[in-house]
């Protein structure tokens, strides 16, 4: 299961970030300016950790984790932007 968690880990991080930002935007908009940067930094750190953790996996899995972390990080930063715009 560890390999599977590594593979989808970056996307779970994205889901967590998205859910946090969305729930704050929908239900507690006054907290958004605090919640969003915290979640964004946490999300990026989590992706970095996942890349670090995957180094023991095979090369193919490492590729997927790195790619996933890259896409997830872009999406996380991208979806945090509307809060500041």
């Amino acid at each position, binding site marked *: 299961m560890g*390999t599977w968690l590594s593979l989808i880990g970056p996307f779970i991080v*994205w889901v967590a970030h998205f859910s946090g930002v969305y729930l704050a935007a*929908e239900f507690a*908009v006054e907290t958004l300016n605090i919640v969003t940067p915290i979640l964004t930094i946490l999300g990026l750190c989590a992706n970095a950790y996942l890349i670090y953790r995957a180094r023991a996996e095979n090369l*193919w899995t490492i590729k997927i984790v790195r790619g*996933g972390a890259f896409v997830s990080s*872009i999406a996380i930063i991208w*979806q945090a932007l*509307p809060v500041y715009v």
Partner: protein
Amino acid sequence: MTEGDSSSADFYGRFPSKRAGSKADFAKLEKIWCAPTGWQYLTAVSNNYIGFYYLSTAFVFFLLAGILALLMRVQLAAPAQTFLSPAAYNQMFTMHGTVMMFLFAVPAVEAVGVLLLPQMLGARDLPFPRLSAYAFWIYLLGGLSFFASIFVGLAPDGGWFMYPPLTGRIYSPGISADFWLLGIGFIEISAIAGAIEFIVGIMRTRAPGMSLDKMPILAWALLVMSVMIIIGFPSVILATLLLELERAFNWPFFDATRGGDPLLWQHLFWFFGHPEVYIIFLPGAAMLTMVICTVARSDVVGYPLVVLSMLATGFISFGVWAHHMFATGIPDVSVGVFSAASTAVTIPAGTMVFCWIATLAAGKPQLNAPGLFSIGSVIVFVTGGLTGVMVAFVPFDWQAHDSYFIVAHLHYVLLGGMLFPLFAAFYYWAPAVSKHPLSDRVGKWVFWLMFIGTHVTFFPMHLAGLMGMPRRVYTYLPSQRLETLNFISTCGSFILAAGVALFIADVIRNFRFTPGDGNAGNVYGGGTLEWLPSGLYSTRSIPLVVSRQPLWYDRNISRDVEQGRYFLPRSATGLRETIMTSPVLAEPQQLLVLPGPSVWPITAGVFTSGFFLLLTVQATTAAVTSGVLAILSIVIWLWDTDRPISTKSVDIGEGLYVPTHAFGRMNHGIWATIALLVVFGMIFLMALFSLLFLWTNQPKFWIDPPSFSESTFAFVSGFLALALSSSLRAILRRTKNVPLTVCMLTIACALVIYAQYADLTTWREAGLAPWASGQGAIVYAIMAHQASLIALCVIVTLYAAGRSVAGLVTRPTSVLLDICVLIFAYTAAQGLAGGAVTRLLGAIV
């Protein structure tokens, strides 16, 4: 063999074995897998039959929905026509959308999976063949009954999205909306059953050596799709149940005057509805990828990128649902977040497109029928994708919302992302199913007619939309200058239909479904396992996979497989069986005995469909009877399958022994149960979202909940049930005493029932009624969901007790009790969570 065991390499080195399998073994294999004859032909459960039935039925629904589209185009060919009445037009566009999305698109991609996946993975069949059969029969019977509603004027007419309040009792009296709400219930069950089958099949029945990096792209797509189904479909299950409860019992979930909110429906519906587009698209993209590889004679360029894109698309698609609601006045920041996610999803989709183009560029593409359909798919899909980016931006979406521009966009995406790939797949894989391939020459004609027809039909709709033509109106006035564009669209739709008609002629002329009697073979030179010589038993022996394109990598593999030089060249137990492998590296772990033909999946399908349809016409007693008979049928079918096997371990080739049973997490039944509980969990989560949504939007309708001290009995019983279920897991590891375990399950069952009763009583004493407010409605709905799980607990307890008395629960080989414990633990935990959250939210107000 455990995952990552270094001994696997030693075993793999022995294949292909020097000794060929005997003819006697082969004859036995054929006999075990032969199809039933006579009327029992219908009881076949093998994927070769069920997959074909499934796909044929889906195609029939495609034709029926296509005819509805043609009728609508005739109506719109000129202004102020009266070919269809407004009411009939409403029914037509509702049925067209519903049938295409629920009865054609999702079932069609699942059908392709059922038909091809076992062979593609090197398995003899999917792990739960009777579940596939049940999914098919419920779909066929329910689908036909649902479609028949249009012939008696009872078809739903509120659009395929069925927004309340239009579909509430006031504006949609009668039973046509109920037909939709209950009628698609069977499709949801069918889709979820198929998804569970695929998840377990792909994770656990791959051929030895087929590690994740060697899995066919279609398997990856079906895996992602299946996970999306069990995450996304529960939302629409909940939505349809809530609206039906509102219509039948006046529970005001969507009534703003009584603490409900019509926007809640849109959130729930689109949380399913938008991922549904990707549920359809991902398998389409995967079919396209596999066809492109073969026609270009090149392995896919950027395989990890394609896999990554599918995973990314699967996840991100759950973050875009509200882009269907930009015009509803949701908060500005939410709009921004959803707009960002909607544009982010273009990254993985675009990556896939570049991989396809690179694969075509890397090889020498053949412009045969599958090749043309593949290239055409890319063009049509990219066109639809580009307009998708446009509508992801809020200012443009506000302009184009509910106009024909959106109709054009969605048809480009769905035709390019699913229909064209499906036709590529028809031409490409027909030789694997039929005695003769389809005609390549006719196929090229079909392609050009469909390709031209698509553009002529849908491109003018962009312009009509930008000129202000709204969706879902049965006519327009001559003064609007829309007649030329609409006339062109109508002409295009008939060109498209001509392409489909020509395809049908080709099928009638050439297609011969002869399972077990050979097929046309590898006409296009594909490299994946489904092109190995096969019969009803799939392949004679299960190959060792060392490449993503095994047939290109090893020219002798077909011969060696056919001679029985690989795994499982004979039936080790005298029954239907396949190899279960580990989830990552696909190392052999267990021999899985598969059930054979049975009439019970059919009866279960008949009665399940009967349950939903009888409820629709408000024949409650008959519906309940039908539901009970459906449960009985399922119990009898399960009773027959979980039999003790005397042989503990068997040789699956070259002295590699694997057990005939797997325990705990290794067992496929546990995997399926976890997937089922995820479905229940998602329904529960979406119900909690509904609670939160109504709480924030309609706080003035909320009353004080019962306090935690008033609810002590409910919580204590719930905790005891959870503790008992959790400790049962530990007890099961140490004891073989089945009657004792069943007794403890019965006690746990009594505890969860009491907890539910106490919960209900405290809410009633607090003065909350389900018809009084949105809060009452959603709290009672959460309790009703909990009650359905408790009913499941009662059924599995009775089942376990019955099997225990019959001496059929033999520990540790039977995992029935492990499954029961899992269900009980989840039920108790959900009850506690539901009770706590409903009280906490109310208390905060």
